[in-house]
């Protein structure tokens, strides 16, 4: 496939876009590097160098007989998972490696994926089910599970609402765990049949960066040391913020009752 110079630079731009979307959906850095390198080769680049860490993507492409093109993009992602878009991106990139789409179409397909969102009611239902199940899983009663599910809905709505503000993840975790801790603490104080610890554990499962931490350690063990270290430091800070929010809430509740 022979690309004009302007097509080449537009391809590079689309590749950055794809990398950003992949990271935003929670894809592994090694996977992002692999996908982008293959994509470059599929479009006929003689050499494609991709460097990805959670906060930066840098791509350098060389087409035969021409000067290399290089671009860098700063990424803001919190490592949240979005399988809905991840799968679409996977299909798109696989397709492109076999039979490359014209560069302009690649761009519009990416824009279509970026605009797609999983429906809110599925997210709400999923969180409620997960919190209910884990409250019961860790030894709570059905009632504890139901209370955890109600607070899970609150977490989701807060995430939707606060997510639109430019709050960073650590501050966000602090605020959300403080609010949820207070809510659950008050409810358990009013209804002594409920177990505050089980309800909170159900809801914590939605918030703890356990997966982020696991992925960070995994990155380091498979050789993506920088990405792993960055993610590990981030997820520890998020966990501390989360714990601080809950601790403040527990202290307030203890002081009140």
């Amino acid at each position, binding site marked *: 496939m022979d690309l004009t110079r302007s097509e080449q630079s537009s391809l590079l731009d689309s590749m950055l876009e794809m990398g950003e979307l992949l990271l935003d959906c929670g894809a592994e850095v090694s996977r992002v590097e692999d996908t982008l390198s293959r994509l470059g080769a599929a479009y006929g680049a003689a050499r494609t160098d991709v460097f990805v860490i959670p906060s930066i993507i840098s791509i350098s492409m060389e087409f035969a007989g021409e000067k290399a093109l290089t671009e860098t993009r700063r990424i803001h992602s919190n490592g949240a998972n979005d399988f809905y878009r991840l799968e679409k991106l996977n299909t798109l990139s696989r397709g492109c490696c076999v039979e490359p789409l014209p560069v302009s179409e690649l761009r519009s397909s990416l824009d279509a994926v970026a605009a797609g969102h999983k429906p809110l009611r599925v997210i709400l239902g999923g969180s409620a*089910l*997960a919190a209910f199940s*884990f409250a019961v899983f860790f030894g709570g009663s059905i009632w504890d599970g139901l209370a955890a599910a109600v607070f899970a809905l609150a977490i989701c709505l807060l995430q939707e609402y606060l997510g639109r503000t430019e709050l960073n993840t650590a501050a966000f975790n602090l605020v959300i765990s403080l609010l949820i801790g207070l809510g659950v603490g008050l409810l358990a104080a009013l209804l002594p049949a409920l177990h505050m610890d089980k309800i909170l554990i159900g809801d914590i*499962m939605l918030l703890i960066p356990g997966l982020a931490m696991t992925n960070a350690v995994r990155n380091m063990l*498979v050789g993506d040391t920088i990405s792993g270290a960055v993610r590990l430091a981030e997820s520890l800070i998020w966990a501390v913020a989360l*714990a601080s929010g809950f601790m403040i809430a527990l202290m307030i509740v203890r002081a009140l009752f």
Partner: protein
Amino acid sequence: MNPAVQIAAAFFGSLGFALLFGLRRRYLLPASLGGMLSWGLYLLLDHLLSSPFLACFAASAFSTVYAELLARLMHSPTTLFVIPAVIPLVPGSSLYYAMSFAVHRDMASARAYGSQTLELALAIAAGMSFVLACRELHTRRKS
């Protein structure tokens, strides 16, 4: 805690997360089954070996193999299946009790739960990486 109730709860917990992450409908059942199987395996091994770390390592390694196989079968990324499968292994309760004991100034218990949390997180990561490293070795030898 009744193991049957817990295994059922693991299934629904994984299903909840799969929904939350927007997994496609036809992948929901196999992904949630992964969570149920991995927790069942964890309970069994923990009972036999009485080592939560080893049980967690093995259950996580199993989840990764399971996810790899499904991903091959369905031509989709492994992540889609591995994350719901390891969710029940994530040490949410020890993290909570570590915090709670810290608030109540019982630092010895807080430390014990805190280190258990880290140990289990490490076991999950090590189990996954072990399988991924084996796969990588295998594909490199082939090419």
